[in-house]
């Protein structure tokens, strides 16, 4: 689905978190958002997800305005937010209440397998490590197969190997179902490896500083001359966006 953010502003008690931000994502594309801490990345995702309403401007999916959470939109929060009273399997199946028991079981097992948590299906969230909880939260969002998937630093608590695995897993799922992906990350390599386009945000007020297309065909190498060149471009833009604020 096509996502459009039109001239959106968001203020919290007078403090401007986002100012006149516009953004378009074509159906099935992957957009990465990078930017300094507190520049409004999570706020932007929450607005797109319909959890917050914009102070001004509009957000639309295929032309129809988003005013509340929608079935087509999935969100992985910056924190895992697992429900402590459900097992890991219960959490992952939370959005499958309408499916039959058997179908739910199969989908949950498959999703857990994919994020490498099959052995933890019956564990309680309190028994998970930070990275395991993050993967369970990812599985919970993936299992309902949203057409638009918003990911707020979904791999931040993972080691490099697991992170690379899950990035590839995400790309596999994306290739299969072709959702529109918006991914917030602090990791420039991750942004360049995954995204068709990287949006660099600046703070005070939150806005887009630069948009960089990553014209590298998939499957991509993690390290190559072209990838490195794109990475340097993004890193430089990010440095400027953060530095500009400090100046």
């Amino acid at each position: 689905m096509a996502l459009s953010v039109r001239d959106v502003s968001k203020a919290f008690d007078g403090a401007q978190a986002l100012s006149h931000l516009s953004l378009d994502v074509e159906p099935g594309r992957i957009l990465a958002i990078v930017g300094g801490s507190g520049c409004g990345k999570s706020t932007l995702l929450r607005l797109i997800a319909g959890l917050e309403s914009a102070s001004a401007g509009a957000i639309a999916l295929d032309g129809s305005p988003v005013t509340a959470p929608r079935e087509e939109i999935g969100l992985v929060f910056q924190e895992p937010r697992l429900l402590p009273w459900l097992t890991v399997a219960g959490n992952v199946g939370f959005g499958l209440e309408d499916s039959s028991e058997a179908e739910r079981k199969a989908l949950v097992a498959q999703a857990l397998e994919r994020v490498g948590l099959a052995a933890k299906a019956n564990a309680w969230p309190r028994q998970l490590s930070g990275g395991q909880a993050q993967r369970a939260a990812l599985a919970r969002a993936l299992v309902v197969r949203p057409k638009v998937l918003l990911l707020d630093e979904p791999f931040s608590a993972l080691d490099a190997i697991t992170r690379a695995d899950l990035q590839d897993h995400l790309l596999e799922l994306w290739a299969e179902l072709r959702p529109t992906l918006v991914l917030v990350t602090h990791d420039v390599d991750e942004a360049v490896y995954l995204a068709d386009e990287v949006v660099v945000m600046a703070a005070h007020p939150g806005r887009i500083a630069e948009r960089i297309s990553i014209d590298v065909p998939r499957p991509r190498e993690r390290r190559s001359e072209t990838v490195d060149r794109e990475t340097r471009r993004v890193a430089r833009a990010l440095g400027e966006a953060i530095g500009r604020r400090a100046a």
Partner: protein
Amino acid sequence: MTDFSLSGLTHAKGDAVRRRSRFIAGWALGLALPVGLALLWEAAVRLGLSDGRLMAPPSRIFATLGALWTTGDLALHLWATVWRVAVGFAIGVASGTALGAIAGSSALTRRVVDPTLQGLRAVPSIAWVPLFILWLGIFETSKVALISVGVFFPVYLGVLGAIASVDRKTVEVGRIFRLGRVALARRILLPAILPAYVLALRAGLGLGWMFVVAAEFMGASEGLGYLLVDGQQLGKPDQIVATILIFALLGKLSDALLVAASAPWLRWQDVVREED
């Protein structure tokens, strides 16, 4: 030698065994003090160090209990008290839960309901006794009413506080999955407030036992409270101590029942305790 392919199973089994032995150890430790003191006192009276008139030794207390039991008096008084607490508890819990949920459901209803209830809470509950007797007579109704009042406030406050402290982040998970009001209450709010609710019920039950004595002091012809008054007026300290012992057992037993009944819903919390 550990067989790693079975380690999950043996681990679970080991857990169960460990939990049971810890359970037994807990009981043994908890009983050591009262049983030890009782035995010491028994010995002291037998050895003539005290005549045990004001504080009977365990053997005489058990004899008193046995006598009360064989005449059928004990069952009568016990049943009267348990019945009053049960009915008062049920009414207090139902009204406390309902008003707590109403006050907790929106800021507006809270502002309407809460100040009045907080004001009433400031009244020492025993102060209601004369009014209840005038309104409801000196028989069962006024007693049950007093117990209900005692149970009501901790339950009301518990529900209100639990609803207020439900994490907004958890509620957002429900919103992202587009739960309606009922589903949100059932799948997010209820499980989130349950631990605090059980604590509130336990506090309410404790007050229920406290208030039943107050209620029975104000003129009853049956009930454990009556046994206490009777023991005092006729100078039967054995009977008083025996009754106190029954209260201790009843309080502990009813609390344990409540905990056991709620345990299946709160298993997820045990995880933390096991790690302690």
